[in-house]
């Protein structure tokens, strides 16, 4: 019985008691329509054992970047059912369609719930559909969870950057695009050495050979190899507050996704450390599958409270090998320098990309004198923080999120800036 049935029952009790109290038969007969309605509801109440429902779910990305969900619920029983279907968990912002429907399903018939929603990123999983079967008068209900599992990862949008020039302290012996300062096969001339057995005849430097009788010389080219690039994303909620639905953390996530895509496209090995509600790590790897791994990790990021950045412990050395490049995306709050110092150790080239949280929120700051003063103080504090990091020989990019990131990162990765080559 639901609230409607209880109301009817209470009214029947009330009318009958009133009839008893007043000793008036006409009053008692007034309860008859209420009683018959209630009895019909009870007689036609759905029986749990007679309910046979099955569901199938389809979740897919649409061309506009949204997520389309369709769930079909089928009545496998013999009797017709009045059903209220509701998808759970309901996505926060269903943009089109409905997450709940009502339907009268005959035997073998199917009702389909269709909706779509748009989110910047996230992991969504569904276990089933909530089905409430009721009598036609909705006086008695049976709640059922119909299994209809589904899952989708909405990856953050990545901007396509042009290749970023890298000059790490160490390259990996695998063909790539970074000049390795080692002779071998490549495109750029590197030097000349004496001929070794097995050298290709086409690489013999005939001019030099002609000048030195009895000796052969071979031209060498600079090897182009790959590098280890580490990305660290700070997911603290202090940077999450946004204006007009904007979110600074999302800018950081998108920037990380864009950088990871660019570095992997260049053939490098990329690792990712996400300092969110729970720290997430993606150990170094390369290729398309690895990019999917990184994007999935970013999709599942949940912000955490604004405390000092935790030290990730022993995994740091495995994630970011010595003399690799590490790009840290952080708004630089207080007490962040110990982790930056640890990252900077072992000859790593660290670049801090700092989305400017002060300017991001400036538009929503109060315009009274106190507000202006507070804004000014915050700007000074941030400038001092950036300067303190720069003094550690760490390249700092002060990023206004409404400006393109590519030229700033490109400039910061140039040799001689900040860490540069150790």
């Amino acid at each position, binding site marked *: *019985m639901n*609230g*409607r*049935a*209880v*109301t009817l*029952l209470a*009214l*029947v*009790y*009330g*009318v*009958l*008691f*009133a*009839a*008893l109290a*007043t*000793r*008036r*038969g*006409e*009053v*008692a*007969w*007034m309860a*008859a*329509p*209420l*009683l*018959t*309605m*209630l*009895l*019909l*509801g*009870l007689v*036609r*109440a759905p029986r749990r054992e007679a309910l046979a429902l099955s569901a199938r779910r389809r979740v897919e990305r649409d061309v506009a970047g949204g997520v389309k969900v369709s769930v079909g619920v089928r009545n496998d029983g013999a009797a017709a059912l*009045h059903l*209220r279907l509701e998808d759970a968990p309901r996505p926060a912002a269903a943009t089109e*369609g*409905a997450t*709940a*429907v*009502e*339907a*009268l399903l005959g035997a073998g018939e199917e*009702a389909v*719930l*269709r*909706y779509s929603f748009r989110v910047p990123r996230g992991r969504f999983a569904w276990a089933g559909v909530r089905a409430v079967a009721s*009598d*036609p*008068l*909705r006086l*008695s*209900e*049976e709640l059922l969870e119909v299994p209809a599992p589904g899952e989708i990862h909405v990856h953050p949008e990545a901007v396509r950057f042009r290749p970023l020039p890298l000059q790490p302290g160490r390259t990996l012996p695998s063909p790539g695009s970074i000049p390795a300062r080692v002779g071998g096969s490549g495109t750029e001339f590197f030097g000349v050495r004496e001929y070794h057995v097995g050298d290709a005849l086409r690489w013999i430097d005939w001019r030099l050979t002609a000048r030195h009788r009895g000796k052969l010389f071979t031209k060498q080219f600079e090897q182009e190899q790959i590098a280890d690039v580490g990305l660290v994303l700070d997911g603290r909620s202090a940077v999450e507050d946004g204006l007009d639905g904007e979110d600074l953390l999302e800018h950081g996530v998108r920037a990380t996704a864009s950088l990871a895509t660019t570095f992997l496209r260049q053939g490098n090995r990329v690792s990712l450390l996400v300092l969110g509600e729970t720290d997430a790590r993606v150990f170094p790897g390369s290729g398309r599958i690895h990019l999917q791994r990184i994007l999935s990790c970013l999709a599942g990021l949940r912000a955490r409270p604004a405390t000092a950045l935790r030290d990730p412990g022993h995994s740091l050395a495995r994630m970011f090998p010595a003399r690799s490049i590490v790009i840290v995306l952080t708004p630089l709050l207080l007490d962040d320098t110990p982790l930056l110092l640890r990252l900077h150790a072992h000859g790593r080239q660290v670049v801090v990309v700092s989305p400017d949280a002060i300017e991001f929120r400036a538009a929503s700051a109060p315009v009274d004198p106190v507000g202006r003063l507070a804004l000014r103080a915050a700007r000074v504090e941030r400038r001092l923080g950036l300067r303190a990091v720069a003094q550690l020989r760490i390249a700092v990019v002060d990023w206004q999120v409404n400006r393109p990131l590519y030229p700033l990162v490109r400039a910061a990765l140039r040799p001689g800036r900040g860490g540069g080559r150790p």
Partner: protein
Amino acid sequence: MRRLFTLRPIAAALAILASQALLAAAFAMVRRGEGLAAAAACALGWLTVLVLAAPAASLCLTASLALAVLAVLAGAPGWLSTAATAASLVAWDLTHLATEPARGVDDAAERRMMGSHLRALGAGILPGVALAGVLGQARLTVPFPVMVGVVILALVALHRAGRQAG
């Protein structure tokens, strides 16, 4: 679908007006001005609930039933009060339907469901009205203790049935 969703409140409003008109007629027959005013106030309140989609339809039904009982006690004919009760029940049900948020069903499915609901509503209320009419005509002299016993039996049966239905 839009048309059907706009039809629901209209049907509910008509049922509300009909139920309160029957009550007003009952009070008019016994020349009770305050009863007429109360029926008008109840109609107004119920229509407000309908317009604002407030979850107070049950309160309106209770008020309407109380007025029907008072009308009988004031000497109005029992059949008129029973008819008013039945109309109030229909109005209560339609108000619930009208104030529910729109569900994503197509027009044909909505029409089918509404048809089934209205048929069930008729099947639930009309036998009750008929029964009340028959019982209203019967002139039985039932001793008070027997009446109390019957009522308690009915209540217990209802209670047990309700518990069995969950």
